[in-house]
């Protein structure tokens, strides 16, 4: 890989300052960025590691009852410490494999917005708030297509706030080689309605399935989804599955998530 300078700031303010440099890039756990650098698909002049920033670590409860996760918190920590939101902890516990969960971070995953990643579905499905060094962004405004987010250059995710639902579940149909979601569906039932977020399927990245949300808000049972389907026309088609196959999985995994919630 190409060489770069490496900065290890200990505060958000120092990280933001370091990211002002031309072609500086934030580094979380590196579970996506390091492979990308190896392939020379990125060539930052400076990597700014966010792992050493104490204020971006850990899980806590917000005053409004939401579960707040520091942007540099790894998946294993969320799995172990986000018990107040069991479906979220369970989602984190099934990302990648144990070694990946010890390094990869929630902020890194959401900033990358891989179209097959788990956390984008959890954040969108929970109506989470993405907190950055500069502002708060609602999940509905944050995800803007495959690998595209509302983040500006040099802006970093310092915290993610998840309102805790009455019931929730994430069902992932695993692509066994990469352990990413071939299709993953996150269903969460709140007092004011049900949210359904789907990852791994659309060419536009994670999305909400409005029809299923309406049906489940009226009747939270798998049978409420009978007859509902998505079109595979604009879905990811690759050697692991056609768009049509993914569209079928979306409906199947949504039902499973409702049944398991």
């Amino acid at each position, binding site marked *: 890989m190409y060489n770069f*300078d490496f900065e290890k700031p200990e505060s958000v303010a120092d990280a933001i300052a370091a990211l002002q440099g031309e072609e500086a890039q934030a580094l979380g756990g590196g579970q996506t960025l390091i492979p990308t650098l190896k392939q020379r698909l990125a060539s930052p002049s400076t990597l700014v590691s966010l792992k050493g920033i104490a204020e971006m670590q850990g899980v806590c409860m917000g005053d409004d009852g939401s579960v707040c996760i520091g942007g540099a918190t790894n998946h294993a920590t969320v799995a172990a410490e986000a018990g107040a939101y069991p479906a979220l902890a369970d989602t984190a516990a099934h990302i990648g494999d144990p070694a990946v969960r010890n390094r990869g971070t929630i902020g890194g995953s959401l900033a990358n917005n891989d179209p097959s990643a788990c956390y984008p579905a959890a954040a969108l499905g929970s109506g989470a708030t993405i907190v950055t060094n500069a502002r708060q962004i609602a999940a509905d405004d944050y995800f803007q297509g495959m690998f595209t987010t509302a983040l500006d250059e040099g802006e970093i995710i310092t915290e993610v706030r998840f309102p805790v639902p009455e019931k929730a579940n994430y069902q992932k149909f695993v692509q066994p080689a990469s352990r990413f979601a071939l299709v993953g569906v996150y269903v969460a039932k709140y007092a004011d309605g049900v949210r359904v977020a789907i990852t791994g399927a659309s060419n536009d990245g994670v999305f909400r399935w409005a029809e299923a949300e309406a049906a489940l808000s009226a009747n939270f049972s798998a049978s409420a989804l009978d007859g509902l389907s998505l079109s595979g026309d604009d879905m990811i088609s690759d050697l692991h599955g056609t768009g049509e196959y993914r569209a079928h999985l979306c409906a199947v995994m949504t039902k499973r998530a409702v049944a398991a919630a």
Partner: protein
Amino acid sequence: MSKKMHIKLNVNGKDEEFLAEPRELLIYTLRERLNITGPHIGCETSHCGACTVTIDGKSVKSCTMFAAQADGAEITTIEGIGNPDDLHPLQTAFKEHHGLQCGYCTPGMITRATKLLEENPTPTEEEIRFGMAGNICRCTGYQNIIKSIQAAAAEMNAAKEAAE
């Protein structure tokens, strides 16, 4: 020209200090700089787990971490787990239960399994498969690896009980 990093590690109980380019991956630090060649390079894409080491008590794939990220850390590799004269119970079990054929994945397998058994001293087959999911073996079909880990768990639990 990038700035070299001053890095301190403790590997298998021994302090190491050196200057390295930021892009130096930890697996190369271990293998080429420190001549600790137990951790292997399999895929170098963080899939296969042959490079698994323990960093500050956690399993990590050393091909997907920079040495600069490990600065100040305590690292254990297979060399720090056992040796031919004093095998770890997992090493004995892998040998007795045919948990390896070519052996390429074995250092990573055993290093990961030590942490698995710390986290869960009595794992079921399903828990072993889940806990070892990041370590790939292309020889054994995994059956004997599971048997080996179960046998080591039984051995370690018996030894612990005997000691109490």
